[in-house]
């Protein structure tokens, strides 16, 4: 077996100081910006990862194909790619397809073949199935039915870029300075319970939901079995995958507001619920009863994103760090404040959110056309 010790521990220390790093930045005015700043910020937390996973999620990058689902697919070999492309043509209109542009990066070893496809469901979609549900179903079919293929991004006007390497190396490899989006998330990985592989890097994603995570979801088994009942099949061998499917189920399919979904994943403790007014007690008790299997146990800080929204959340006793910062229209979320200061030295304010309390950034004009500001959402 290949000895990777020298790669992640060049000083031969007996203790490795790593933890994961996460970072998110969103311009709530909708202004798009390149991947340069977030790459700098996540690289400032280099020592939190160990080079076995890095990745980015970016929103607003494919305006020319905004109506199409952008499937990012990695393949181990050309034969698998041919089979999957046949499958795509059978089930979708494929408007455009190309290899995802990369550059030679010394640190990136034996990368998979990575292509992107801009697709729309064709007449095979059953009438009782929404486009979104159809896409979820077919992503699951590809990820479970083709041994050497992995769909790791499937939303509209957004994309995930990830692989084995430090995040700054992944950014260089995928030329992320050439993309522009209004919301970026990033992750540097330090795998604890599972191997480092290309599909196992963060963000984890389904449709336009992405999740980056620092921590350990010890309820993974319970969460996974619950999600399987709704057609989500875990294929990435990593705890964080359940969070991506949980937010798709809670927010998109069950229509919960994010504030309620946050209380499903990080519910108030029973002793806290006992002190609340009757109507809130009833709400939190119902959420804990109906969705007890989606409670995320164990230490976590996550940044969840989807079209127009970025959410930071920690477990209720905050066993992993999260710092928030605001400058004008821009909301920053990070494992460490210094990473934010590096790219924005003159923040209007920074604070560490309470455990279990979501910090939410929304595009100033949301789907209902209602103006929303960070200040209203991000209460310290």
């Amino acid at each position, binding site marked *: 077996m290949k000895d990777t010790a020298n790669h992640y521990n060049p000083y031969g220390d007996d203790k490795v100081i790593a933890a994961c790093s996460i970072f998110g930045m969103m311009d709530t005015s909708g202004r798009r910006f390149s991947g340069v700043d977030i790459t700098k910020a996540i690289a400032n937390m280099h020592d939190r990862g160990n080079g076995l996973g890095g990745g980015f999620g970016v929103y607003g990058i494919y305006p020319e194909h905004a109506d199409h689902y952008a499937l990012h697919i990695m393949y181990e070999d050309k034969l698998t790619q041919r089979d999957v492309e046949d499958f795509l043509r059978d089930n979708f209109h494929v408007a455009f397809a190309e290899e995802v542009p990369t550059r030679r990066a010394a640190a990136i070893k034996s990368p998979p073949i990575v292509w992107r496809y801009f697709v729309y469901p064709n007449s095979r979609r059953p009438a009782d199935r929404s486009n979104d549900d159809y896409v979820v179903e077919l992503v699951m079919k590809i990820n479970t039915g083709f041994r050497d293929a992995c769909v790791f991004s499937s939303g509209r006007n957004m994309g995930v870029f990830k692989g084995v390497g430090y995040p700054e190396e992944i950014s260089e490899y995928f030329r992320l300075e050439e993309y522009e989006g209004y919301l970026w998330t990033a992750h540097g990985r330090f795998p604890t319970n599972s191997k480092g592989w290309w599909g196992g890097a963060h963000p984890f994603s389904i449709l336009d939901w992405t999740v980056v995570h620092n921590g350990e979801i010890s309820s993974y088994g319970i969460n996974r079995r619950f999600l399987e009942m709704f057609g989500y099949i875990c294929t990435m061998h990593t705890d964080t995958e359940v969070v991506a499917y949980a937010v798709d189920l809670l927010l998109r399919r069950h229509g919960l507001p994010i504030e309620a979904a946050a209380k499903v994943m990080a519910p108030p403790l029973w*002793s806290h619920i006992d002190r609340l007014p009757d109507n809130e007690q009833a709400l939190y008790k119902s959420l804990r009863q109906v969705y007890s299997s989606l409670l995320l146990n164990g230490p976590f800080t996550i940044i969840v994103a989807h079209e127009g929204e970025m959410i930071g959340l920690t477990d209720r006793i905050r066993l992993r760090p999260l710092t928030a910062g605001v400058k004008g229209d821009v909301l920053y979320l990070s494992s*460490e*404040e210094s990473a934010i200061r590096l790219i924005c030295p003159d923040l209007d304010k920074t604070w560490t959110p309470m455990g279990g309390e979501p910090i939410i950034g929304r595009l100033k004009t949301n789907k209902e056309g209602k103006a929303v500001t960070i200040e209203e959402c991000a209460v310290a």
Partner: protein
Amino acid sequence: MNPTATSIERSGTTVKIDASGVYYRDLNTVLREVVTGDVERIDLVNICGQRYIGTDLGREVEINIHGTPGNDLGAFMDGPRINVYGNAQDGCGNTMNEGEIVIHGHAGDITGFSMRGGKIFIRDNVGYRVGIHMKQYLSKVPSLVIGGTAQDFLGEYMAGGILVVLGLNLRAGETHKANFIGTGMHAGVMYIRGSVERHQLGKEVGIVELNAQDRENLDLLVAEFANHFGYDAKEILAGDFIKLLPLSLRPYGRLYAY
């Protein structure tokens, strides 16, 4: 990782180091090298996330940090006096033995973690589990003073030392928000200015009246705090304080005794 070129300027007993882009290992190596002879003061500029600053210097020296130092600022520190003109991250003062850290801003989680000597003053708020497992022995009594408020598990498993929360940024009638204050505390003392409800306290602590010794402790620490950050000590001391003491020296002694 290549050692990064570091810009160092010396003038008399002061050394100024520009840390922009300098890797933490290289920075701490440089600090060990410059803390010799008659150097009394080190100014660090453009600090951004470098860890462990102030560790392993083993003597008194003033270190002024401009920027945002990384985790475990002053870890195992034994002598230096650090001023941070900005905010500190997590683990500030981890197991420090002697010296002083003054933060002109806020500090993150587990500030004062396992501290065994010296003093930490923080102007604004602090994060979770601050003062966790502070300890004391004979003349070594660490002190941690927080100007703002704290988040949950303040003073968790405290085994010694003095922890003060002044609540200076609370509005009139506002209580501290922290829950599980003093959970598992079994020695040391906590003074809190401003109100907390009984349910915010851990099971292992009780509220008691302040005595003359407590007043003396507070007079000294609040005077130093006020001096660092330009407050009026008398005004602060005029507020109502509560004192938290552990109810037992071995709160979990019977946990596994069936």
